[in-house]
């Protein structure tokens, strides 16, 4: 009965907007928002809440943001999307929580997945705790309008050249 109650509770939670995954380490990772629509070049914020659901305080924890493309053939360099992806959380007391925010730049168009993994700083053999992935949909945006480049590329040198020529002519006339 207890097990059935537990399963029902998890199902109820899973269907809610807040995604929580129970982890053997007792640390849960909740990301929000789970779906982001943005345009190429914009910045978005991803918040991750780390909660210690275990009976004892955790050791020092490390959280790391990963970025990957959901479309094959598209190379994503996570370093370009967000700096300081690795964060050192310190310890979490029982029932305690901490929220970290990452600023993410939309470098490429398409569907991008973001997820956060948490590992103890000391115990390398532990399985990382993760939350649900965030789906980032980046729409294209024309960031460089090449129309008008010729007037600029030719106009500025021509203007400076005219000014220079004018000065030389004026000097020679003396």
């Amino acid at each position, binding site marked *: 009965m207890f097990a059935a109650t537990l399963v029902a509770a998890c199902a109820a939670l899973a269907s809610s907007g807040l995604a929580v995954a129970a982890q053997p380490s007792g640390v849960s990772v909740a990301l929000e928002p789970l779906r982001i629509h943005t345009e190429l*070049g914009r910045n978005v914020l991803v918040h991750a809440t780390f909660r210690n659901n275990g009976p004892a305080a955790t050791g020092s924890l490390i959280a790391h943001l990963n970025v990957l493309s959901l479309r094959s053939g598209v190379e994503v360099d996570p370093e370009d999307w967000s700096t300081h992806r690795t964060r050192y959380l310190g310890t979490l007391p029982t029932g305690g929580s901490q929220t970290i925010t990452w600023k993410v730049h939309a470098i*490429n168009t398409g569907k991008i997945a973001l997820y956060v993994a948490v590992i103890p700083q000391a115990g390398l053999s532990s399985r990382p705790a993760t939350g649900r992935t965030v789906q980032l949909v980046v729409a294209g945006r024309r960031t*460089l309008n090449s129309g*008008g480049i010729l007037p600029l*590329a030719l106009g*500025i*040198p021509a203007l400076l050249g005219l000014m*220079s020529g004018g000065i030389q002519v004026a000097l020679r006339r003396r």
Partner: protein
Amino acid sequence: MELAVPTPPTRRARGWAIVGEQELRDLWLGGRGMLLGVAFSLLLSIIAYLTATNQALNFLEQREAVNLTLQVAIAVGSLLALLAAADAVSGERERSTLESLLLAPVSRLGITSGKLIAALSLWAAAFVITVPYVWFLGRGVGLVGKAVLLGLVVGTLLAVFLASVGMLISVFASSNRVSLSVSLFLLLAIFTPTQLPSSAQKGWAGEFLLRVNPLTAGEHYVGKIVVNDHSWSEDASWLISPLVAAAVFFFLAAFVGARYMQLGRRASE
């Protein structure tokens, strides 16, 4: 018995301002400055055209294009300021015009200051010419204001540093050719660390070299903000060497350079 010292007519402007104004006139109305500006704008035009017509350019590459434009502006502007300053005293000496200037009642500090102003005007012009290109390339990625301000700050620090170095070399060089050669050699030496393999740049020694070198430190700072969208304070420690270099060498050029400015090693028959 001391004869009465006639009071000069009302002094309307300080010596450095008069020297600076004349140097600016010689540089810009004389045609040299404008020609350099035309050549520089052609270079930027090529970069901007190639960037703008590249349909496959992604967002990051566009930021890198803005970064490249800024780096070129800073490098070329600083180089021009260096060369102008390297000619400032040794060139006058070689053209036999220095003695007349030293005979005027303007302090040597006023002379070096005025000439530094003229040298730095080349950087100022390079910066102004760069702005429309940065605007064109950066407007789509929301970079214009930040890039312009960044270029102004970092570029000015580096231009002051290099112009001051050039002025110092010019004061002590035995000829104008020596002055220009030493200045160019120094510039090459300063740029060399940028050519080190990335693995060498990442170690503690490599990073130290990059940080201590004002040019590479400034270049690093600009790149982090423009390309990686770092905040101004995030990499602020990289600005230490450009700041210190600009301050120290400006002081040396203005004061020490003034103290040792002479006609030549043997200004006699």
